[in-house]
């Protein structure tokens, strides 16, 4: 078994916690001194930096949410002068303002370390060709895995996303051995292979890291079969760092969190109580080495479970099981974060009376589909098809540009959508992985 950093990855829990405690206390002190919104939050909660001495004190600290980042857009939560920031990334979501994150040179180096660990987790070595088909740009996926590959000493192939035919040619001609991409893109490449006459035997691929969107075990089997590889799950979010906050190992039984850099907790999203190990709840991360943007108790909205047992791979780092959904209503459609509220405001900007609608999310041939169903009303109805078609076109254009993902607009007869007595049900997600938190 290979490890990138065995001392940490296989350390006894007591050592991991001691390191976390030391780094947490330092981070909290630094954040209190340098980040005004945190100072305000802690003062309001009546917590002093010196109250935080160990991991056991974590619960005294207030939470951070995406809204805090928006309220302090773009750089208000940074803990270093912008002169020390060497890179910016931004969230893929398009809810009004983007969420902007920053990194110092040391942050980039630690991120590369985490990404290198992820690659070694799945059997990567310096002899591998790491083909990165995540987008390069403000999205963290591309550059995050690229730096990890270079840190490992492997050969990075910065293919970025798109141009599927070229991707397949590069697999074959450049001898790519490890791929990093979204699982849905892998599936669409597999479909294209058949069409273009490629066989998996044409490639030297052996493993892949797939993340940035929810995927199922069924998709894992399809990717493994289609590309002739082992497919592994990788997790990350730009607010905390980017891909490789956690990553599966060859055991494929949960993603090891880089606990020397991030402390993970699971909370009840309603009561905000920390839940005991093994419980399903909302994942919360605290950055303990980040310089530019050390978020404290950041609520990810992802629902997952933490497993502290030692893994068969020998690593002691806690594993998080594949996220089972989200606590907010955010939908992830083809890798893009979509909030139903964005769709509603786009719809109402075209037709302020269009208050009866239903969003239907599905997965057809492994691609997410999004449909909005609208009831017709006498006042939007003439006697010709043209009027209705130009109406649906206008609605589609407004929503498409608001969320950055194509939507299908479907008109229904009046009173066909179910009326609810309480809160209206606006989203129907028919995919295997739901984005709703269902309590046990």
């Amino acid at each position, binding site marked *: 078994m290979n490890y990138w950093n065995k001392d940490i990855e296989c350390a006894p829990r007591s050592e991991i916690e001691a390191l976390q405690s030391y780094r947490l206390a330092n981070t909290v002190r630094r954040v209190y001194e340098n980040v005004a919104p945190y100072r305000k939050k802690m003062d309001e909660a009546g917590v002093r930096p010196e109250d935080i001495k160990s991991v056991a004190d974590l619960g005294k600290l207030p939470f951070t949410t995406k809204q805090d980042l928006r309220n302090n857009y773009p750089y208000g939560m940074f803990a270093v002068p912008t002169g020390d920031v060497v890179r910016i990334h931004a969230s893929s979501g398009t809810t009004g303002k983007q969420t902007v994150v920053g990194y110092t040179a040391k942050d980039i180096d630690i991120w590369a370390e985490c990404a290198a660990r992820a690659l070694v987790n799945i059997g990567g070595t310096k002899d591998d060709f790491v083909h990165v088909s995540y987008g390069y740009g403000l999205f963290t996926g591309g550059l995050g895995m690229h730096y990890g590959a270079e840190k490992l000493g492997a050969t990075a192939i910065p293919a970025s996303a798109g141009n599927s035919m070229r991707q397949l040619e590069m697999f074959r001609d450049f001898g790519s051995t490890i791929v990093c991409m979204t699982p849905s893109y892998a599936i669409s490449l597999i479909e294209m292979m058949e069409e273009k006459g490629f066989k998996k035997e044409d490639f030297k691929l052996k493993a892949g890291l797939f993340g940035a969107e929810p995927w199922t075990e069924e998709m894992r089997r399809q990717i493994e079969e289609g590309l002739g590889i082992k497919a592994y799950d990788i997790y990350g979010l730009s607010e905390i760092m980017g891909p490789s906050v956690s990553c599966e190992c060859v055991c494929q039984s949960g993603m090891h969190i880089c606990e020397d850099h991030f402390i993970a907790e699971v909370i009840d999203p309603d009561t905000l109580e920390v839940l005991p190990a093994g419980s399903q709840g909302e994942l919360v991360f605290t950055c303990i080495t980040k310089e530019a943007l050390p978020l404290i108790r950041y609520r990810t909205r992802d629902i997952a479970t933490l497993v502290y047992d030692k893994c068969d791979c020998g690593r002691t780092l806690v594993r998080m099981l594949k996220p089972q959904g989200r606590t907010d209503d955010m939908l992830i459609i083809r890798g893009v974060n979509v909030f139903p509220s964005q769709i509603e405001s786009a719809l109402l900007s075209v037709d302020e009376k269009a208050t009866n609608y239903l969003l239907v999310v599905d997965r057809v041939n492994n691609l997410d589909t999004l449909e909005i169903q609208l009831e017709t009303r006498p006042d939007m109805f003439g006697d010709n098809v043209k009027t*209705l078609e130009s109406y649906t076109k206008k609605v589609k254009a407004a929503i498409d540009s608001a969320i950055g993902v194509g939507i299908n607009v479907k008109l229904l007869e009046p009173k066909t959508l179910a009326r609810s007595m309480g809160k209206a049900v606006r989203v129907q997600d028919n995919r295997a992985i739901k984005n709703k938190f269902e309590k046990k």
Partner: protein
Amino acid sequence: MLIDQISVFVENKAGRLAAVMEILNKNGIDIRAMTVADTADFGILRIIVNDTEKAIAALQADGCTAAVTKVIAFTIPDVSGALYNVIGKINDCGINIEYLYSVMGKTAGRADIVIRTNDTEKAVKVLTDNGVELICGKDLCR
């Protein structure tokens, strides 16, 4: 001179047309003429009935999206070239026909045509100026 036509929004799926027909049947409405414009997702049923007010009230009471539009109906001899003659005249005046359908005439040797144009008033004038026989609602299919 003009005829009231009812348009009903129907989803393009099994049973929807039957549901509309059932409402009309229950209320004793007699359909004089009908046509359906369809798209992949929905259709628009256009009907001319013996009692427009009663029909529209019944449809709306049942939750249908329905509207009344004025259309023009005229009768032509059932010989080749007859429709071309009339349409040609309308076209010459720069009027656009948005849709047209024919109705099974009950008088042997005649065909009844229903049209909707972008300029109803002008279309009526063109037709009457050219001696085309317009028909009223009660005379349609009689």
